Protein backbone atom coordinates (compact mmCIF):
# COMPACT_ATOMS: atom_id res chain seq x y z
CA UNK A 1 0.00 0.00 0.00
CA UNK A 2 1.75 3.15 -1.16
CA UNK A 3 0.53 6.69 -0.74
CA UNK A 4 -1.17 8.31 -3.76
CA UNK A 5 0.46 11.53 -5.02
CA UNK A 6 -2.73 13.40 -5.82
CA UNK A 7 -6.26 12.86 -4.54
CA UNK A 8 -9.37 14.42 -6.02
CA UNK A 9 -12.89 14.33 -4.62
CA UNK A 10 -15.91 15.94 -3.01
CA UNK A 11 -15.44 17.50 0.44
CA UNK A 12 -17.52 16.33 3.38
CA UNK A 13 -17.37 18.95 6.10
CA UNK A 14 -17.56 18.25 9.85
CA UNK A 15 -17.19 20.49 12.90
CA UNK A 16 -14.87 20.82 15.90
CA UNK A 17 -14.19 18.12 18.49
CA UNK A 18 -15.68 15.28 16.45
CA UNK A 19 -14.91 12.42 18.83
CA UNK A 20 -14.35 8.74 18.14
CA UNK A 21 -17.75 7.71 19.51
CA UNK A 22 -19.34 9.92 16.86
CA UNK A 23 -17.00 8.64 14.15
CA UNK A 24 -17.87 5.05 15.00
CA UNK A 25 -20.23 4.38 17.93
CA UNK A 26 -18.70 1.86 20.35
CA UNK A 27 -21.43 -0.70 19.65
CA UNK A 28 -19.85 -1.32 16.25
CA UNK A 29 -16.54 -2.23 17.88
CA UNK A 30 -17.78 -5.81 17.53
CA UNK A 31 -16.83 -5.39 13.85
CA UNK A 32 -13.24 -4.44 14.79
CA UNK A 33 -11.80 -6.82 12.20
CA UNK A 34 -14.19 -5.89 9.34
CA UNK A 35 -13.33 -2.56 7.68
CA UNK A 36 -16.22 -2.62 5.17
CA UNK A 37 -18.84 -3.20 7.88
CA UNK A 38 -17.29 -0.43 10.03
CA UNK A 39 -17.38 1.84 6.99
CA UNK A 40 -21.14 1.42 6.66
CA UNK A 41 -21.57 2.99 10.10
CA UNK A 42 -18.92 5.73 9.92
CA UNK A 43 -20.02 9.09 11.39
CA UNK A 44 -23.32 7.56 12.46
CA UNK A 45 -22.90 9.09 15.92
CA UNK A 46 -22.81 12.66 14.61
CA UNK A 47 -26.29 14.04 15.29
CA UNK A 48 -28.33 14.19 12.07
CA UNK A 49 -25.56 12.66 9.93
CA UNK A 50 -26.59 9.05 10.55
CA UNK A 51 -27.00 8.19 6.85
CA UNK A 52 -23.76 9.88 5.80
CA UNK A 53 -21.80 6.74 4.91
CA UNK A 54 -24.29 5.73 2.20
CA UNK A 55 -23.74 9.04 0.38
CA UNK A 56 -19.96 8.81 0.09
CA UNK A 57 -18.34 8.12 -3.27
CA UNK A 58 -15.05 6.21 -3.12
CA UNK A 59 -12.22 8.73 -3.04
CA UNK A 60 -14.11 11.61 -1.37
CA UNK A 61 -12.31 13.83 1.12
CA UNK A 62 -13.28 14.58 4.73
CA UNK A 63 -12.64 18.01 6.22
CA UNK A 64 -12.93 18.36 10.01
CA UNK A 65 -12.45 21.18 12.49
CA UNK A 66 -10.17 21.32 15.50
CA UNK A 67 -9.28 18.36 17.75
CA UNK A 68 -10.64 15.92 15.16
CA UNK A 69 -10.87 12.34 16.48
CA UNK A 70 -10.68 13.13 20.19
CA UNK A 71 -11.86 10.57 22.71
CA UNK A 72 -11.11 6.88 22.55
CA UNK A 73 -7.92 5.17 21.36
CA UNK A 74 -9.88 2.86 19.10
CA UNK A 75 -8.13 2.47 15.81
CA UNK A 76 -11.49 1.59 14.27
CA UNK A 77 -12.13 5.36 13.99
CA UNK A 78 -9.76 5.98 11.08
CA UNK A 79 -10.45 2.43 9.84
CA UNK A 80 -14.20 3.20 9.61
CA UNK A 81 -13.58 6.47 7.75
CA UNK A 82 -11.32 4.65 5.28
CA UNK A 83 -13.88 1.85 5.05
CA UNK A 84 -16.55 4.38 4.10
CA UNK A 85 -14.47 5.32 1.05
CA UNK A 86 -12.78 8.51 2.26
CA UNK A 87 -9.33 8.83 0.70
CA UNK A 88 -7.93 11.55 2.94
CA UNK A 89 -8.85 13.45 6.10
CA UNK A 90 -7.98 17.14 6.42
CA UNK A 91 -8.54 18.97 9.72
CA UNK A 92 -7.70 22.15 11.54
CA UNK A 93 -6.00 19.90 14.12
CA UNK A 94 -6.10 16.25 15.15
CA UNK A 95 -6.40 14.63 18.57
CA UNK A 96 -3.17 12.78 19.22
CA UNK A 97 -4.29 9.14 19.22
CA UNK A 98 -6.33 9.56 16.03
CA UNK A 99 -3.26 11.22 14.50
CA UNK A 100 -0.97 8.35 15.57
CA UNK A 101 -3.41 5.71 14.43
CA UNK A 102 -3.81 7.23 10.95
CA UNK A 103 -0.05 7.58 10.45
CA UNK A 104 0.55 4.07 11.78
CA UNK A 105 -1.99 2.73 9.29
CA UNK A 106 -0.34 4.65 6.46
CA UNK A 107 -3.64 6.50 5.98
CA UNK A 108 -3.12 10.06 4.71
CA UNK A 109 -4.17 12.91 6.97
CA UNK A 110 -3.29 16.58 6.62
CA UNK A 111 -3.40 19.48 9.00
CA UNK A 112 -4.63 22.70 7.38
CA UNK A 113 -6.40 25.37 9.45
CA UNK A 114 -6.85 27.35 6.21
CA UNK A 115 -8.74 24.54 4.49
CA UNK A 116 -10.74 23.68 7.61
CA UNK A 117 -11.98 27.23 7.75
CA UNK A 118 -12.64 27.87 4.05
CA UNK A 119 -13.88 24.59 2.61
CA UNK A 120 -17.64 24.07 2.49
CA UNK A 121 -19.57 20.83 2.25
CA UNK A 122 -19.72 19.71 -1.39
CA UNK A 123 -16.66 21.65 -2.63
CA UNK A 124 -14.51 19.84 -5.21
CA UNK A 125 -10.97 19.45 -3.91
CA UNK A 126 -7.66 18.28 -5.29
CA UNK A 127 -4.91 17.49 -2.82
CA UNK A 128 -1.26 17.29 -3.73
CA UNK A 129 0.04 15.08 -0.92
CA UNK A 130 3.69 15.43 -1.89
CA UNK A 131 3.75 19.20 -1.68
CA UNK A 132 1.02 19.67 0.91
CA UNK A 133 -1.25 21.80 -1.28
CA UNK A 134 -5.06 21.70 -1.36
CA UNK A 135 -6.85 23.18 -4.38
CA UNK A 136 -10.52 24.09 -4.12
CA UNK A 137 -12.02 24.01 -7.64
CA UNK A 138 -15.42 25.21 -6.44
CA UNK A 139 -14.01 28.36 -4.86
CA UNK A 140 -10.84 28.77 -6.92
CA UNK A 141 -8.76 28.81 -3.68
CA UNK A 142 -5.56 27.13 -2.65
CA UNK A 143 -4.55 26.17 0.90
CA UNK A 144 -1.29 25.09 2.52
CA UNK A 145 -0.85 22.16 4.88
CA UNK A 146 1.38 22.08 7.92
CA UNK A 147 4.48 19.92 7.51
CA UNK A 148 4.87 16.78 9.64
CA UNK A 149 8.17 15.71 11.22
CA UNK A 150 10.27 13.64 8.84
CA UNK A 151 9.79 10.33 10.65
CA UNK A 152 6.02 10.61 10.29
CA UNK A 153 6.32 11.35 6.58
CA UNK A 154 8.59 8.35 6.28
CA UNK A 155 6.06 6.13 8.01
CA UNK A 156 3.28 7.44 5.75
CA UNK A 157 5.41 6.91 2.64
CA UNK A 158 6.36 3.34 3.52
CA UNK A 159 2.74 2.45 4.29
CA UNK A 160 2.67 2.81 8.05
CA UNK A 161 4.12 1.17 11.12
CA UNK A 162 3.67 -2.43 9.89
CA UNK A 163 6.39 -2.36 7.19
CA UNK A 164 8.62 -0.38 9.57
CA UNK A 165 8.30 -3.05 12.29
CA UNK A 166 8.89 -5.81 9.71
CA UNK A 167 12.15 -4.12 8.78
CA UNK A 168 13.18 -3.78 12.43
CA UNK A 169 12.40 -7.45 13.08
CA UNK A 170 14.42 -8.54 10.04
CA UNK A 171 17.33 -6.48 11.29
CA UNK A 172 17.12 -8.01 14.75
CA UNK A 173 16.97 -11.51 13.29
CA UNK A 174 20.00 -10.78 11.12
CA UNK A 175 21.92 -9.47 14.14
CA UNK A 176 20.96 -12.51 16.22
CA UNK A 177 22.01 -14.87 13.39
CA UNK A 178 25.37 -13.17 12.93
CA UNK A 179 26.03 -13.38 16.69
CA UNK A 180 24.84 -16.98 16.90
Amino acid at each position, binding site marked *: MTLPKVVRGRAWKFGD*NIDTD*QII*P*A*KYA*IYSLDEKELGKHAMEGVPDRDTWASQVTQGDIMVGGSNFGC*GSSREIAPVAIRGAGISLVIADSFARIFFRNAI*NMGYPIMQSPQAAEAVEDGDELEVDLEHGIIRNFTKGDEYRCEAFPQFMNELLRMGGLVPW*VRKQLEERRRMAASRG
Partner: protein
Amino acid sequence: MGMTMTEKILARGAGRESVRPGDLVLAKVDFAMGHDLTIPPAGKIMREQMGAEKIWDPDRVAVTQDHFQPAKDAASATLGRLTREFSHQMGVKWYFEVGQGGICHTVLPENGLVLPGELVVGADSHSCTYGALNNFATGIGSTDLACVFALGELWFRVPESLKFVYHNRLKEWVEAKDLILYVIGQIGVDGARSKAMEHTGEALRHIDMEARLTMTNMAIEAGAKNGIMEFDQVTKQYLDGRAKRPYTPVTSDADAEYEKVFEFDVEKVELGVARPMSPDNYAPLSEVAGTRLDQVFIGSCTNSRITDLRRAAAVLDGRKVAPGVRLIITPSSHQVAIQAEREGLIGTFLAAGAAWTTATCGACLGGHMGVLGEGEVCLSTTNRNFPGRMGHPKALVYLSNPAVAAASAVTGVISHPSEVLEKMPAGLA
Protein backbone atom coordinates in the same frame (compact mmCIF):
# COMPACT_ATOMS: atom_id res chain seq x y z
CA MET B 1 18.30 23.17 31.21
CA GLY B 2 16.30 20.91 33.53
CA MET B 3 13.72 18.36 32.53
CA THR B 4 10.16 17.58 33.61
CA MET B 5 9.21 14.13 34.94
CA THR B 6 7.69 13.30 31.57
CA GLU B 7 10.86 14.29 29.71
CA LYS B 8 13.08 12.30 32.10
CA ILE B 9 11.06 9.11 31.64
CA LEU B 10 11.06 9.44 27.84
CA ALA B 11 14.81 10.23 27.84
CA ARG B 12 15.57 7.12 29.91
CA GLY B 13 13.35 4.99 27.64
CA ALA B 14 15.16 6.34 24.60
CA GLY B 15 18.58 5.77 26.18
CA ARG B 16 19.42 9.46 25.93
CA GLU B 17 20.87 11.97 28.38
CA SER B 18 18.11 14.41 27.68
CA VAL B 19 15.16 15.15 25.39
CA ARG B 20 13.28 18.34 24.47
CA PRO B 21 9.61 18.88 23.65
CA GLY B 22 9.06 18.13 19.96
CA ASP B 23 11.78 15.46 19.77
CA LEU B 24 10.70 12.20 18.17
CA VAL B 25 12.16 9.28 20.08
CA LEU B 26 12.09 5.52 19.91
CA ALA B 27 11.69 4.46 23.54
CA LYS B 28 11.63 1.17 25.44
CA VAL B 29 8.30 0.38 27.09
CA ASP B 30 8.19 -0.90 30.70
CA PHE B 31 4.60 -2.14 30.70
CA ALA B 32 1.82 -2.54 28.11
CA MET B 33 -1.91 -3.20 28.35
CA GLY B 34 -4.71 -4.19 26.01
CA HIS B 35 -8.32 -5.35 26.36
CA ASP B 36 -11.07 -7.23 24.57
CA LEU B 37 -11.63 -4.49 21.97
CA THR B 38 -7.97 -3.74 21.23
CA ILE B 39 -6.18 -7.10 21.63
CA PRO B 40 -7.92 -8.86 18.70
CA PRO B 41 -6.76 -6.29 16.11
CA ALA B 42 -3.34 -5.87 17.80
CA GLY B 43 -2.77 -9.64 17.86
CA LYS B 44 -3.76 -9.99 14.21
CA ILE B 45 -1.55 -7.09 13.08
CA MET B 46 1.40 -8.36 15.14
CA ARG B 47 1.26 -11.94 13.89
CA GLU B 48 -0.22 -11.76 10.40
CA GLN B 49 1.11 -8.41 9.18
CA MET B 50 4.28 -7.74 11.17
CA GLY B 51 5.30 -11.39 11.20
CA ALA B 52 6.21 -11.49 14.91
CA GLU B 53 5.75 -14.81 16.68
CA LYS B 54 6.01 -13.78 20.29
CA ILE B 55 5.64 -10.88 22.68
CA TRP B 56 8.86 -9.09 23.63
CA ASP B 57 8.28 -9.74 27.38
CA PRO B 58 5.07 -11.52 28.47
CA ASP B 59 5.81 -10.60 32.13
CA ARG B 60 5.30 -6.93 31.27
CA VAL B 61 1.90 -7.23 29.64
CA ALA B 62 -1.61 -7.13 31.13
CA VAL B 63 -4.82 -8.04 29.31
CA THR B 64 -8.30 -7.44 30.70
CA GLN B 65 -11.72 -8.66 29.58
CA ASP B 66 -13.65 -5.52 30.41
CA HIS B 67 -15.28 -3.56 27.60
CA PHE B 68 -17.97 -5.86 26.21
CA GLN B 69 -17.44 -8.69 28.73
CA PRO B 70 -19.12 -10.78 30.09
CA ALA B 71 -19.96 -11.05 26.38
CA LYS B 72 -22.94 -8.86 25.55
CA ASP B 73 -23.64 -10.72 22.29
CA ALA B 74 -22.18 -13.41 20.05
CA ALA B 75 -19.79 -11.04 18.25
CA SER B 76 -18.40 -9.83 21.60
CA ALA B 77 -17.94 -13.44 22.64
CA THR B 78 -15.72 -13.87 19.57
CA LEU B 79 -13.64 -10.83 20.58
CA GLY B 80 -13.40 -12.28 24.11
CA ARG B 81 -12.28 -15.62 22.73
CA LEU B 82 -9.63 -14.06 20.45
CA THR B 83 -8.36 -12.01 23.41
CA ARG B 84 -8.22 -15.12 25.63
CA GLU B 85 -6.51 -17.28 23.00
CA PHE B 86 -3.92 -14.65 22.16
CA SER B 87 -3.10 -14.09 25.84
CA HIS B 88 -2.68 -17.79 26.50
CA GLN B 89 -0.67 -18.49 23.34
CA MET B 90 1.66 -15.57 24.10
CA GLY B 91 1.99 -16.49 27.78
CA VAL B 92 0.74 -13.10 28.98
CA LYS B 93 1.48 -13.14 32.71
CA TRP B 94 -1.17 -10.65 33.81
CA TYR B 95 -4.28 -11.94 32.06
CA PHE B 96 -7.50 -11.10 33.93
CA GLU B 97 -10.47 -13.32 33.10
CA VAL B 98 -14.11 -12.26 33.53
CA GLY B 99 -14.89 -12.44 37.25
CA GLN B 100 -11.25 -11.99 38.26
CA GLY B 101 -10.23 -8.59 36.99
CA GLY B 102 -12.47 -5.77 35.92
CA ILE B 103 -11.72 -2.45 34.24
CA CYS B 104 -8.06 -2.23 33.17
CA HIS B 105 -7.46 1.18 34.73
CA THR B 106 -8.51 -0.02 38.17
CA VAL B 107 -6.97 -3.49 37.86
CA LEU B 108 -3.43 -2.40 36.92
CA PRO B 109 -2.91 0.08 39.78
CA GLU B 110 -4.57 -2.16 42.40
CA ASN B 111 -2.27 -5.03 41.40
CA GLY B 112 0.85 -2.85 41.59
CA LEU B 113 1.65 -3.34 37.90
CA VAL B 114 2.28 0.28 36.87
CA LEU B 115 4.99 1.96 38.89
CA PRO B 116 6.84 5.24 39.45
CA GLY B 117 9.38 6.24 36.83
CA GLU B 118 8.05 3.76 34.27
CA LEU B 119 7.00 4.21 30.66
CA VAL B 120 3.56 2.62 30.33
CA VAL B 121 1.32 2.30 27.28
CA GLY B 122 -2.20 0.96 27.00
CA ALA B 123 -4.41 0.40 23.99
CA ASP B 124 -7.14 2.48 25.61
CA SER B 125 -7.36 6.25 25.79
CA HIS B 126 -7.76 6.34 29.58
CA SER B 127 -4.37 4.67 30.08
CA CYS B 128 -3.26 8.14 31.19
CA THR B 129 -4.85 7.16 34.54
CA TYR B 130 -1.66 5.45 35.75
CA GLY B 131 0.27 8.74 35.82
CA ALA B 132 -1.06 9.45 39.32
CA LEU B 133 1.51 6.82 40.31
CA ASN B 134 4.38 9.00 39.06
CA ASN B 135 4.84 7.32 35.67
CA PHE B 136 4.48 8.33 32.03
CA ALA B 137 1.36 6.53 30.81
CA THR B 138 -0.45 7.14 27.56
CA GLY B 139 -3.13 5.67 25.34
CA ILE B 140 -2.15 4.12 22.00
CA GLY B 141 -3.86 2.37 19.11
CA SER B 142 -3.83 -1.29 18.14
CA THR B 143 -1.07 -0.99 15.53
CA ASP B 144 0.99 0.80 18.19
CA LEU B 145 0.34 -2.04 20.63
CA ALA B 146 1.30 -4.60 17.98
CA CYS B 147 4.59 -2.69 17.53
CA VAL B 148 5.23 -2.73 21.30
CA PHE B 149 4.43 -6.45 21.46
CA ALA B 150 6.84 -7.16 18.60
CA LEU B 151 9.73 -4.88 19.58
CA GLY B 152 9.21 -3.68 23.17
CA GLU B 153 9.64 -0.15 21.79
CA LEU B 154 7.48 2.58 20.31
CA TRP B 155 7.85 6.03 18.74
CA PHE B 156 6.87 9.05 20.81
CA ARG B 157 6.86 12.77 20.27
CA VAL B 158 8.14 14.35 23.49
CA PRO B 159 5.25 16.54 24.67
CA GLU B 160 5.35 20.09 25.94
CA SER B 161 4.43 20.14 29.63
CA LEU B 162 1.67 22.18 31.24
CA LYS B 163 1.91 22.62 35.00
CA PHE B 164 -1.22 22.73 37.16
CA VAL B 165 -0.55 24.01 40.68
CA TYR B 166 -3.29 23.43 43.23
CA HIS B 167 -3.31 25.61 46.36
CA ASN B 168 -5.29 25.25 49.56
CA ARG B 169 -7.77 22.44 50.26
CA LEU B 170 -10.98 21.23 48.66
CA LYS B 171 -14.13 22.30 50.54
CA GLU B 172 -16.62 19.93 52.15
CA TRP B 173 -18.44 17.77 49.54
CA VAL B 174 -16.10 18.87 46.74
CA GLU B 175 -14.15 15.93 45.28
CA ALA B 176 -11.21 15.45 42.93
CA LYS B 177 -13.80 14.84 40.18
CA ASP B 178 -15.25 18.32 40.66
CA LEU B 179 -11.75 19.77 40.51
CA ILE B 180 -10.78 18.03 37.27
CA LEU B 181 -14.14 18.86 35.64
CA TYR B 182 -13.53 22.48 36.62
CA VAL B 183 -10.00 22.44 35.20
CA ILE B 184 -11.16 20.89 31.91
CA GLY B 185 -13.95 23.49 31.81
CA GLN B 186 -11.28 26.18 32.08
CA ILE B 187 -8.88 24.88 29.43
CA GLY B 188 -11.28 23.03 27.09
CA VAL B 189 -11.33 19.54 25.56
CA ASP B 190 -8.31 20.44 23.45
CA GLY B 191 -6.65 22.66 26.06
CA ALA B 192 -3.82 20.20 26.62
CA ARG B 193 -3.88 18.56 23.18
CA SER B 194 -0.88 16.22 22.81
CA LYS B 195 0.75 17.75 25.90
CA ALA B 196 1.66 16.54 29.38
CA MET B 197 -0.51 17.68 32.30
CA GLU B 198 1.65 17.79 35.41
CA HIS B 199 -0.42 18.15 38.58
CA THR B 200 1.24 19.55 41.67
CA GLY B 201 0.65 21.73 44.74
CA GLU B 202 -0.19 21.29 48.41
CA ALA B 203 -3.86 20.53 47.75
CA LEU B 204 -2.82 17.13 46.36
CA ARG B 205 -1.39 16.10 49.73
CA HIS B 206 -4.93 15.83 51.03
CA ILE B 207 -6.20 13.93 47.99
CA ASP B 208 -5.91 10.14 48.31
CA MET B 209 -4.57 7.85 45.57
CA GLU B 210 -7.97 6.73 44.28
CA ALA B 211 -9.06 10.36 43.86
CA ARG B 212 -5.73 11.19 42.21
CA LEU B 213 -6.38 8.40 39.71
CA THR B 214 -9.71 10.12 38.93
CA MET B 215 -7.79 13.29 38.05
CA THR B 216 -5.15 11.71 35.80
CA ASN B 217 -7.86 9.50 34.25
CA MET B 218 -9.45 12.59 32.72
CA ALA B 219 -6.25 14.06 31.23
CA ILE B 220 -7.38 12.69 27.86
CA GLU B 221 -10.61 14.68 28.16
CA ALA B 222 -8.45 17.79 27.85
CA GLY B 223 -6.68 16.12 24.90
CA ALA B 224 -3.51 15.46 26.91
CA LYS B 225 -0.95 12.82 26.07
CA ASN B 226 -0.46 12.03 29.75
CA GLY B 227 -1.26 13.24 33.25
CA ILE B 228 1.44 12.89 35.85
CA MET B 229 1.91 13.53 39.58
CA GLU B 230 4.84 13.67 41.96
CA PHE B 231 5.86 10.75 44.17
CA ASP B 232 5.02 11.37 47.85
CA GLN B 233 3.91 9.56 51.01
CA VAL B 234 0.47 8.90 49.52
CA THR B 235 2.09 7.19 46.52
CA LYS B 236 4.48 5.22 48.71
CA GLN B 237 1.77 3.99 51.06
CA TYR B 238 -0.42 2.94 48.15
CA LEU B 239 2.42 0.93 46.60
CA ASP B 240 3.81 -0.66 49.78
CA GLY B 241 2.98 -4.35 49.65
CA ARG B 242 1.46 -3.89 46.19
CA ALA B 243 4.29 -3.05 43.78
CA LYS B 244 5.27 -6.07 41.68
CA ARG B 245 8.71 -4.71 40.70
CA PRO B 246 11.31 -2.43 42.27
CA TYR B 247 10.88 1.13 41.08
CA THR B 248 12.65 4.49 40.98
CA PRO B 249 10.51 7.62 41.43
CA VAL B 250 11.15 10.61 39.20
CA THR B 251 10.96 14.34 39.97
CA SER B 252 10.84 17.42 37.78
CA ASP B 253 13.89 19.65 37.96
CA ALA B 254 13.47 23.09 39.54
CA ASP B 255 14.51 24.66 36.22
CA ALA B 256 12.36 22.42 34.03
CA GLU B 257 10.50 24.28 31.31
CA TYR B 258 6.72 24.48 31.11
CA GLU B 259 4.78 25.83 28.18
CA LYS B 260 2.31 27.29 30.65
CA VAL B 261 1.65 27.24 34.40
CA PHE B 262 -1.92 27.31 35.72
CA GLU B 263 -2.60 28.12 39.37
CA PHE B 264 -5.83 27.21 41.13
CA ASP B 265 -7.13 28.02 44.59
CA VAL B 266 -9.05 24.77 45.01
CA GLU B 267 -10.98 26.13 47.96
CA LYS B 268 -12.90 28.24 45.44
CA VAL B 269 -13.92 25.20 43.38
CA GLU B 270 -17.61 24.33 43.80
CA LEU B 271 -19.41 21.05 43.34
CA GLY B 272 -19.95 20.85 39.61
CA VAL B 273 -20.99 18.84 36.58
CA ALA B 274 -20.11 18.64 32.91
CA ARG B 275 -23.31 19.36 31.02
CA PRO B 276 -24.21 17.66 27.73
CA MET B 277 -22.50 17.05 25.37
CA SER B 278 -18.86 17.66 26.17
CA PRO B 279 -16.61 17.07 29.21
CA ASP B 280 -15.53 20.74 29.15
CA ASN B 281 -19.10 22.03 29.43
CA TYR B 282 -18.64 22.73 33.14
CA ALA B 283 -21.36 24.24 35.33
CA PRO B 284 -21.57 24.71 39.08
CA LEU B 285 -24.09 22.26 40.50
CA SER B 286 -26.40 25.13 41.49
CA GLU B 287 -26.95 25.96 37.79
CA VAL B 288 -28.25 22.51 36.86
CA ALA B 289 -29.88 21.49 40.16
CA GLY B 290 -33.42 20.23 39.59
CA THR B 291 -32.71 18.70 36.17
CA ARG B 292 -34.98 15.65 35.82
CA LEU B 293 -33.21 12.30 35.36
CA ASP B 294 -34.09 8.95 33.78
CA GLN B 295 -30.92 7.12 34.80
CA VAL B 296 -28.05 7.50 37.23
CA PHE B 297 -24.88 5.52 36.56
CA ILE B 298 -22.13 5.03 39.14
CA GLY B 299 -19.33 3.21 37.39
CA SER B 300 -16.22 3.37 35.18
CA CYS B 301 -12.46 3.73 35.53
CA THR B 302 -13.05 7.32 36.63
CA ASN B 303 -15.23 6.96 39.73
CA SER B 304 -16.11 3.45 40.82
CA ARG B 305 -13.30 2.43 43.14
CA ILE B 306 -14.00 1.49 46.74
CA THR B 307 -13.80 5.05 48.14
CA ASP B 308 -16.31 6.16 45.49
CA LEU B 309 -18.70 3.35 46.42
CA ARG B 310 -18.34 4.14 50.14
CA ARG B 311 -19.44 7.73 49.54
CA ALA B 312 -22.34 6.60 47.35
CA ALA B 313 -23.39 4.09 50.05
CA ALA B 314 -23.24 6.75 52.77
CA VAL B 315 -25.71 8.82 50.75
CA LEU B 316 -27.98 5.87 49.87
CA ASP B 317 -27.99 4.23 53.31
CA GLY B 318 -31.61 3.78 54.44
CA ARG B 319 -32.95 5.69 51.43
CA LYS B 320 -34.71 4.70 48.21
CA VAL B 321 -34.12 5.49 44.57
CA ALA B 322 -36.85 7.91 43.40
CA PRO B 323 -39.74 6.50 41.35
CA GLY B 324 -39.13 6.90 37.62
CA VAL B 325 -35.35 6.76 38.00
CA ARG B 326 -33.07 3.76 37.62
CA LEU B 327 -29.75 3.64 39.46
CA ILE B 328 -27.09 1.32 38.05
CA ILE B 329 -23.93 0.69 40.08
CA THR B 330 -21.00 -1.05 38.39
CA PRO B 331 -17.86 -1.60 40.49
CA SER B 332 -14.68 -0.98 38.54
CA SER B 333 -13.00 -4.23 39.55
CA HIS B 334 -13.65 -7.60 41.09
CA GLN B 335 -11.46 -6.61 44.06
CA VAL B 336 -13.63 -3.53 44.57
CA ALA B 337 -16.72 -5.76 44.46
CA ILE B 338 -15.23 -8.14 47.07
CA GLN B 339 -14.42 -5.22 49.36
CA ALA B 340 -17.88 -3.69 48.84
CA GLU B 341 -19.40 -7.03 49.84
CA ARG B 342 -17.22 -7.22 53.00
CA GLU B 343 -18.24 -3.73 54.05
CA GLY B 344 -21.95 -4.33 53.45
CA LEU B 345 -22.16 -1.70 50.73
CA ILE B 346 -23.86 -4.05 48.28
CA GLY B 347 -26.69 -4.64 50.76
CA THR B 348 -27.15 -0.88 51.07
CA PHE B 349 -27.31 -0.49 47.29
CA LEU B 350 -29.76 -3.36 46.81
CA ALA B 351 -32.02 -2.15 49.63
CA ALA B 352 -32.09 1.30 48.02
CA GLY B 353 -33.37 -0.22 44.79
CA ALA B 354 -30.18 0.05 42.78
CA ALA B 355 -29.11 -2.43 40.10
CA TRP B 356 -25.70 -3.87 41.07
CA THR B 357 -23.69 -5.34 38.19
CA THR B 358 -20.47 -7.22 37.67
CA ALA B 359 -17.26 -5.24 37.12
CA THR B 360 -17.14 -4.02 33.49
CA CYS B 361 -16.92 -0.82 31.44
CA GLY B 362 -20.60 -1.49 30.67
CA ALA B 363 -22.77 1.58 30.31
CA CYS B 364 -19.91 4.12 30.22
CA LEU B 365 -19.26 3.56 26.51
CA GLY B 366 -22.83 2.56 25.65
CA GLY B 367 -21.79 -1.07 25.62
CA HIS B 368 -24.33 -2.87 27.75
CA MET B 369 -26.16 -2.80 31.10
CA GLY B 370 -27.45 0.75 30.95
CA VAL B 371 -27.38 1.98 27.33
CA LEU B 372 -29.45 5.19 26.91
CA GLY B 373 -32.34 5.67 24.49
CA GLU B 374 -33.31 8.76 22.46
CA GLY B 375 -34.00 11.81 24.61
CA GLU B 376 -33.13 10.11 27.90
CA VAL B 377 -31.26 12.08 30.56
CA CYS B 378 -28.50 10.46 32.61
CA LEU B 379 -26.24 11.61 35.43
CA SER B 380 -23.06 9.58 35.30
CA THR B 381 -19.81 9.37 37.27
CA THR B 382 -17.92 8.56 34.07
CA ASN B 383 -15.45 10.61 32.05
CA ARG B 384 -16.91 11.44 28.67
CA ASN B 385 -20.29 12.75 27.47
CA PHE B 386 -19.85 13.45 23.77
CA PRO B 387 -22.99 12.73 21.67
CA GLY B 388 -23.74 9.02 21.56
CA ARG B 389 -21.14 8.01 24.14
CA MET B 390 -23.65 6.15 26.32
CA GLY B 391 -26.12 5.17 23.60
CA HIS B 392 -28.40 7.26 21.40
CA PRO B 393 -26.76 10.41 19.92
CA LYS B 394 -29.70 12.41 21.30
CA ALA B 395 -29.46 11.10 24.86
CA LEU B 396 -28.23 13.76 27.33
CA VAL B 397 -25.41 12.90 29.75
CA TYR B 398 -24.24 14.95 32.74
CA LEU B 399 -20.99 14.01 34.52
CA SER B 400 -20.59 14.29 38.31
CA ASN B 401 -18.95 12.82 41.38
CA PRO B 402 -20.46 9.69 43.04
CA ALA B 403 -22.06 11.45 46.04
CA VAL B 404 -23.92 13.85 43.76
CA ALA B 405 -24.97 10.90 41.59
CA ALA B 406 -26.27 8.93 44.58
CA ALA B 407 -28.15 11.91 46.03
CA SER B 408 -29.69 12.69 42.64
CA ALA B 409 -30.88 9.08 42.32
CA VAL B 410 -32.73 9.53 45.63
CA THR B 411 -34.40 12.82 44.66
CA GLY B 412 -34.87 12.04 40.95
CA VAL B 413 -33.33 15.36 39.92
CA ILE B 414 -29.76 16.68 39.98
CA SER B 415 -29.20 17.49 43.67
CA HIS B 416 -26.58 18.55 46.17
CA PRO B 417 -25.78 15.57 48.44
CA SER B 418 -26.47 17.74 51.50
CA GLU B 419 -30.16 17.56 50.49
CA VAL B 420 -30.27 13.92 51.56
CA LEU B 421 -27.26 13.56 53.91
CA GLU B 422 -26.36 16.13 56.51
CA LYS B 423 -22.67 15.38 56.54
CA MET B 424 -20.33 12.93 54.80
CA PRO B 425 -19.03 10.62 57.59
CA ALA B 426 -15.47 11.32 58.74
CA GLY B 427 -12.95 9.32 56.76
CA LEU B 428 -15.07 9.39 53.60
CA ALA B 429 -15.01 13.14 52.99
